Structure formats: C-alpha cells, structure tokens
C-alpha cells in the first residue's frame, strides 16, 4: 500500500514534468484585440521598423506590436501558436508577418483556418499591382490569402572590388562560376564564391536549377524526385567546390562565418543569394564596407533558356479572419506594403513586391552609395525569372535540408551522396503533412 502510494508520487512527478514542458512554450500570447480600434500585429525583427513607423504615422491608432522568430529557418512557431489560439478560442493577432512564403498555404486550410481572404479588404486596384507570380504564391485553392512584402529572387552578388583586383570576369553561367571557383581555390585560397550551409541553400542551388523537390501534380499529389538530372548535375557541379573550400557548408548568419569571411578584409568574392542579401547580409551581418558589392544577373545553366532562378523568402502579410478590426488590419497591411519606403540606412531590406513601390525603391537603390555599381538591372531582370515548378507546401522543408544534408556536408560527405537521403526525408515530411508523394 505504502509503496503503491509512493509510486503514484513518482508518476505525479513524471506528469508534472510533462505538464510543465507542455505549457512552458505557451507564454508570450498576446491578448486578443478587444475594442474595434485596437490592433495586434506580429512581426519578425526585420519588419519591426515597419510596424513602429506605422504607429508613429498613426498616433490615433492603438497598435500592439509583438515580435517573434518570424518562423525563420523553417521554425513552426506560428503553427503551434495558431493551434493554441484556435483551441482556446481567442488570442489571435490581427496581422501576422511571416518569413515563410509557404505559411499562408496551411493558414488557409484545415485545421488552422486562420487567414482571411484579402479580396474586399484590400482594394482591387491595389491588389492588381502585385506581379502575377507573387499573387499566385498567395493564392490557395483559388482564393488569395496574403500579399507578399517583398520579392526574394536569387541573383549573383559580386564583390566588384575583389574581382577587379584579381582580374576576374563576372561569370554568366554556372559552369563559368564553377571554373572560377576552382581557379580561386588555387590562386587565392581562403576566398569563397558562395556558401551551401544555409537552411535555404537548396532554394538557391536546386530551386533555381529546376530540381523537382516540391512540385504539385494535382491538389494533393507531390512530386519529389531528387534523382532527377536537374538535381544531380547541380550536385556534381557543387561537390568539387565544397571540397576545395570555395563554397563552404557554413551559414552566413553564424559568428564563424563573419569571423572567417566578413569584415573590412572580407573574403566573399561571389555569392548566389536573394535580393535582400545586400543590406541584411553584406552590410549588417558581415559588415562589408561600402563600394564593394553589386548584383549580377542570375547564373544560367550552360546555354539553356529560359534562365530560371531560385527564391529565398518573399515573406507574406496575413490578416486574421478572427480579427474584430478587419478594416484596421487591412489598413496596416496596405500601408506596410504600398506606402512604407524610407530611404538611406532605414531603407526596406527587400525588393518591394508591390510594383509601384518597387519602382521607387529601385530608383533609390540605383543611387545608393553602398553599391560598387548599380545593382538594379540585375535585380529587376531576376524578379520575373523565379522558377515556377517549385510549389509552396504546408510543411517547412528547410529543417529537412539542414539536418539531412548540411550536417553531412559539415562532416565531409558529398552533396551527390546526400540527394537520395534528402528526397527520402522530404517525402516522409510530406507524407506526415498529408500529401500523396510520387518519387519519379
């Protein structure tokens, strides 16, 4: 009897620990916006200035700003939060910004059903100014559920100062780029022509080169074919460069990277990367001084046309369908995407998705002293070249890439040998999310 009671005690300790863990992450909920005038907005750190600027411009409006990880690197914070809000029946914010371009896909569907259709909330004459591919990415089952903050087309970032110093010409094709990588390894070891250690490196190298890892065939049928020649040929191209250290499996957002390749004597010669790299990576993370960096057109595969490129981001604004202040929420989103456009150091980090704003932003970038040369022609050209064969799905693929491929690249394995495990892991993630998967 006594022992039994003690056993219960142990069980209770067990349960307490379990209960404690379950609730530890529930904190930080915002209360739901009670009055019709109040607005709760969830943003990532990069979008905090927008929200703060809105508050400054509209002193009459009560806006509560909450910052969160933005679902960065494939985190699923929003899924867990929305699950909880749905379960408790309150607490939803009115507006959310997510770094994950695919978030609206699950937000629009069961069991989350969080996103409100934007038609009717944002006037049609504004909505029509977003480029068609951007609108398509926000459209789920025929209804548009978000507007993108920025376009995140991948271009080739070039360190003009270093390229001139080494007397190299900017590559136009992936083959020229790889040949240059080999040359750099022998002539200027320590310098790099890219990096493959990001949680989104597959979007840069595999998406841009038409590797079918997320291709919807019908509503719920997903093609994941990592042994497609479009995938294997990129891996074969990259492997020697990963091997010789000119494309290290290291993220630009790690202290290690900044220490090795950043700063005033930076060692980044070239880097395929999205449009927001100039400000967010080269300027603010690596502290590469002004007058060095510019953008070149996305790399082409041999002479194949049309040229396609990848996409890293394109974060959407989503309005909650539970909002008691839908008009206020829409007003915020309209202001953030079509009006907000400071200049100089506070300029928007990314290429605005809303076309009329993009024109103004590009004009400012063209004369921005940070660049060694005008990056806007390359950015503008790449905006329409994002490959459409990579669809948005309900699950995040970044962690799959990170923990199946990047960890192995760090351990010295080749990318070619990791394509099969990547396909397998993606297929499992897709099946767990409810997709029917085709592998070839």
């Amino acid at each position: 009897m006594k022992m039994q009671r003690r056993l219960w005690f142990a069980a209770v300790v067990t349960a307490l620990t379990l209960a404690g863990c379950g609730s530890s992450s529930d904190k930080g909920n915002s209360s739901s916006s009670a009055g019709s005038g109040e607005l709760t907005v969830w943003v990532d750190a990069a979008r905090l200035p927008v929200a703060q600027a809105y508050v400054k411009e509209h002193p009459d409006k009560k806006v509560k700003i909450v910052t969160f990880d933005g679902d960065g690197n494939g985190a699923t914070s929003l899924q867990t939060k929305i699950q909880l809000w749905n379960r408790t029946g309150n607490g939803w914010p009115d507006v959310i910004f997510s770094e994950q371009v695919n978030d609206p896909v699950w937000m629009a569907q069961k069991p989350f059903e969080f996103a409100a259709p934007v038609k009717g909330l944002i006037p049609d004459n504004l909505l029509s100014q977003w480029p068609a591919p951007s609108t398509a990415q926000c459209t789920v089952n025929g209804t548009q559920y978000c507007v993108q903050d920025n376009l995140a087309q991948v271009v080739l970032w070039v360190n003009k100062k270093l390229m001139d110093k080494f007397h190299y010409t900017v590559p136009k094709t992936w083959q020229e780029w790889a040949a240059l990588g080999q040359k750099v390894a022998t002539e200027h070891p320590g310098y790099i022509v890219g990096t493959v250690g990001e949680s989104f490196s597959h979007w840069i190298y595999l998406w841009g080169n038409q590797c079918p890892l997320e291709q919807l065939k019908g509503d719920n049928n997903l093609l994941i074919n990592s042994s497609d020649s479009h995938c294997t040929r990129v891996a074969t191209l990259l492997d020697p460069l990963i091997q010789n250290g000119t494309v290290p499996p290291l993220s630009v957002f790690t202290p290690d990277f900044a220490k090795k390749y950043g700063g005033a004597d930076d060692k980044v010669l070239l880097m395929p990367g999205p449009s927001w790299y100039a400000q967010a990576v080269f300027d603010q993370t690596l502290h590469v001084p002004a007058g060095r960096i510019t953008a070149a057109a996305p790399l082409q595969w041999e002479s194949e046309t049309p040229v396609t490129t990848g996409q890293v981001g394109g974060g959407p604004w989503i309005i909650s369908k539970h909002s008691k202040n839908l008009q206020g929420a829409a007003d915020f989103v309209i202001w953030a995407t079509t009006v907000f456009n400071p200049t100089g150091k506070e300029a928007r980090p990314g290429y605005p998705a809303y076309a009329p704003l993009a024109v103004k932003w590009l004009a400012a970038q063209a004369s921005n002293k940070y660049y060694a040369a005008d990056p806007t022609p390359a950015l503008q050209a790449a905006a329409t070249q994002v490959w459409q064969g990579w669809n948005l799905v309900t699950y995040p693929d970044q962690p799959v890439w990170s923990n199946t491929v990047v960890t192995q690249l760090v351990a010295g394995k080749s990318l070619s040998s990791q394509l099969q495990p990547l396909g397998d892991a993606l297929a499992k993630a897709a099946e767990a999310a409810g997709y029917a998967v085709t592998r070839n």
Partner: protein
Amino acid sequence: MRSPATDEEIGGPAASSPRAQATRRRGLRRARGLPFVLLYLPFLIMFGIGPMIYAVVLAFTSDAGDWTGFRNFTRTIHDYRFLPAFQHILLYTSVWLGSLIVFVVGLALVLHGRANHVSSAFRFLFYMPGALAGAASVLVWLFMLDPSVSPGSFLLRHVLGSDLFVQSIAPGKLPFIFAMIAFWTGAGGWIVVMYGALNTIPHELEEAARIDGAGPVTIALRVKLPLIRKWIAYMAILSFATGTQLFVEPQLVNQASLGMVPDTWSSNQLAYQLAFRYGDFNGAAAISVDLLMIGLLGAVLVVTRTGLFRTEN
C-alpha cells in the same frame, strides 16, 4: 475446519496485538501529517493527477472523443520520427544517468573525507553551475560549444575535434553534448544532497571501522556507500524521469543551429510537435503515456531492486 481455528487461537493473540498497535500508530501519524500535505493537495490534483488522467483519456480516444483502444499508440510508434527520438533519449539517458551516479557519488564521497572548509568550498563550486537553471544554462552552453567564442576552445578542438559550432553539435555527438549540459547543471545540487546523506552516518560507525583497520577507501566503499544506497536510488528515479523527458536542450539547440538539429530530436519534442503543429493531441498524449510508463517502469525497477521504501530493519 478445526485446524485453522486452532492456528488462529494459538498464533492469534500473540501476533495480532503488536500488529494492531503498529496500525494504530501509523494511523495517528497519518492524521498528524495531513495538515502538512493539505495545502499541496489541491495543486497536486490540479496540475499533477488531473493532467495525467487527461493524457490517459486522450491517448485512448480519437479527437471526436470515441474509444480507439491502442490505435493512437500503434500509429505514433509507426511514425518515422518515433524510433530515432526514443533511440536518442535512450542513449542520452544512459550516458547522463551513468555519469551522474558515478561522479556525484564519487565526488560526494571524496568531499566527505576532506577537512570541513575544503569540502564546503568545493561543494559551493560544484553547486555553482546548477544556479543557472534550465534554459539559461543551455544558452551559456551554446557559447561554450562555439569554438570561436568559447573559453574552452582548445578542448573543443582537441577533444571534440570541432573548429566550428556546427561541428560541435554534429548529430553523433548530440546525446553526449546534452548529457554533459544536463550533468553540469544538475550534478551540483545532487552532490550537496549526497553530502547531506553522508552526514547522517553516525560518526561512531566510521570510528569503529577505522579501529578495525579499514582505510578511507574501504570506509567509503564498504561503510558509507551501502548506507546512502537509498539516496542514490532516489536520485536515479527522479533523474531517470527527467532524462527521458528531455525537451529544453534540444529545442533551444534546434533554434540556435538554424534547424540543423531536428525539432523532433527527443520523444518529448515529438509529442509537442504532434500536438501543436499537427493538432494531433491524441497522438501526443499517447507518446506522453509511453514516457509515463517508461518512467514508472524505471521507478518500479529501482524501488524493488534497492528496497528504497522498505522501512523495517
């Protein structure tokens, strides 16, 4: 019919009287103890027993509330993340628990043999890392494991063979890394507890052993160790439950490594993901019940093997 009655008559009065007395005494003790636990009881029911019953109910029902038997259990067992998560936990718990028992008991025994001021200084030193609880200690360890900022970078380079943070947290090293983090945050407290336990050993006993010719090592292993056996068992039970329910460390490293460590590394994380990402509260409850059973089983084994709650002499 006759003989059992005779037995009772013979053995009855002599045997039942002390037993009845003992029962009465125990009843009295229980009544006196009641006010002490009364304040705790509502919380225990609300946050302990209640959620546990809720988890068990959820584990055996569907989201519509229908009885499903063991379907939630078989479904989660066949999840592709289930087996790796439990393998990680098994390896982690055995490494951690093993080092915890060996080092905590060893260090406590060594400390107990020292002069008082030396041992109190060391006790404080060992306790220090434990003052940083949970998440905070993990954050400190994230820096410790990054060769570019760590004060122990030469150790990382030569022992772990890592020049970069991503190499420190390579998948194969993770169970050991987490065991190390958990050891340094938890060991200090247990060393103090064990030291307290050693202090309850009567001095005469040690004296007697010494007169009989036992050296400090023999005293530690043959006299002190058996006497604190129950304390060790107690530590093992609590630590086993904590170990199998690992959550904070992998969760934070998942964020810090930009997703290189899966967010379903441990079984508790898998339960969390199932519940809050997939909305599968029943599957999550099934995994929680799995963990509860593992914890209970571990406790039963330790209790029966060590006679932890045997009160008679």
